[in-house]
């Protein structure tokens, strides 16, 4: 390509320069926005990348292995197309593919659904399966004063406590507060996607239950000690139980 040198009036050149800068800034902002929101993948690319067929994808959708919210419809030049949040869907597909060898699709669906199935385990069984350590179990029994049988909800509570205490993020007093919060909100925990959040400011700690929260912001000086998603914990727990 060859360029001709022409002499433009100065104001024209300046105007061109400013337009360029504006465009550049705009491009930068656009890029920022793009990376802020989740990266999407089209259905076609997803099938190719994951090596699955339309039949499989639709079957998994029917079995509720892929949540309805992940099907994002967008209009493209060929008409409407479906997109998925890339990271989430790929992670889910890998999970399904690795686990479907041992489990039926219905069992998998139970695992991914936040609804709670009727499962009960004995206290010793949980310790034996390495889901809970003896110390945490004793602490839990002391504070909760429940029976020896654990339904899935109590298992989730103790599993979350185990996770938090073993990581060393919280101490026993804080664990008591966490347990209180979990106990008081069993209804939401069963139905919605919840997070447990523990903050500390000037040595005073508090515990929150976030229901369907996207982002949280805390004031300066407050430290988020730990945030645990109950939904993921439930999946981990179910994977350990099955």
């Amino acid at each position, binding site marked *: 390509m060859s360029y001709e040198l022409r002499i433009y009036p100065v104001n024209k050149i300046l105007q061109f320069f400013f337009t360029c800068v504006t465009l550049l800034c705009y491009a930068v902002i656009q890029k920022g926005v793009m990376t802020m929101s989740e990266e999407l993948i089209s259905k076609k690319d997803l099938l*190719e990348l994951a090596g699955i067929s*339309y*039949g*499989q994808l639709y*079957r998994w959708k*029917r079995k509720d292995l892929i949540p309805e919210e992940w099907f994002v419809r967008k209009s493209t030049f060929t*008409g409407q197309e479906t997109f998925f949040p890339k990271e989430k869907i790929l992670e889910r597909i890998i999970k399904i593919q690795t686990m479907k060898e041992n489990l039926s699709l219905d069992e998998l669906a139970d695992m991914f659904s936040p609804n709670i199935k009727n499962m009960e385990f004995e206290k010793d069984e949980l310790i034996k399966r390495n889901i809970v350590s003896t110390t945490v179990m004793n602490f839990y029994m002391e504070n909760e004063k429940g029976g020896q049988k654990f339904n899935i909800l109590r298992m989730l509570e103790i599993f979350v406590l185990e996770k938090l205490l073993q990581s060393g993020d919280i101490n026993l007093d804080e664990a008591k507060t966490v347990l209180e919060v979990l106990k008081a909100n069993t209804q939401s925990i069963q139905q919605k996607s919840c997070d447990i959040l523990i903050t500390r400011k000037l040595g005073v700690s508090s515990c929150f239950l976030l229901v369907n929260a996207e982002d949280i912001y805390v004031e300066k000086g407050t430290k988020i000690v730990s945030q645990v998603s109950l939904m993921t914990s439930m999946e981990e727990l179910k994977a350990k139980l099955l």
Partner: protein
Amino acid sequence: MDTKVREDLEVNGFGASNGGQFNHVTLNGFSTVNSDVDCVEFKSNGFGTVNGNVKSEQFKVNGKAKFKGTIESQSLFIDGTAKIDGNLHAEHVKISGKISVGGRIKSDEINIKGTLTVEEDCEAEIFSAEAQFNIGGLLNADEIKVQIYGTCKVKEIGGQIIIVKHKGSFFDSIIKPLFTAQLETDLIEGDKIDLENTIAKVVRGNQVRIGRNCQIGLVEYSEDFEQDKKAIVNKSVKI
């Protein structure tokens, strides 16, 4: 289900009752149940109405019936006409006649001869129909076998095997200008697709066969593509 303590409910002639838990529920004549019903066997002969949800193991309608709520049953047979305002969850569905569902259908096996109207999605493992249907959402089934009668409309179709056929008869050729038998949809996606008399914007699949009287905007295929002489395909792309 504890069935020992349950009584039967039978309404004959022109009557009404409240719902509740029953063993057998039989509605004969022009009868109404005014609240939710939980039973082992539900049967409506004549003109039955339930102003609530029905939960049962076996569900049968002969004649005409109306349901204000959702229906949950293992098997569901309809000979005649049924109108369901809510959702329909049943493992086996067999319909001879007409059914319209205000919500969605979730099932294992759907077998329809007649007319089907669904406002939202329709999901099943096997969907076989010799019918005229109208589905507002996605028709999602592992195996979709459809013989179309009249104008069928679906927003989208997805599954593994999708076969759409039209059996042309002599009678059809006479009244063809009045009633065109065709299936209209935006999108068809499946592994194996075999179409006839279909109007679709986009068809995507591994093995795609476009038969007679089809009008397809775009075909995207990964293995095979076959097109009938009497079909119109604007564009076909191998991926």
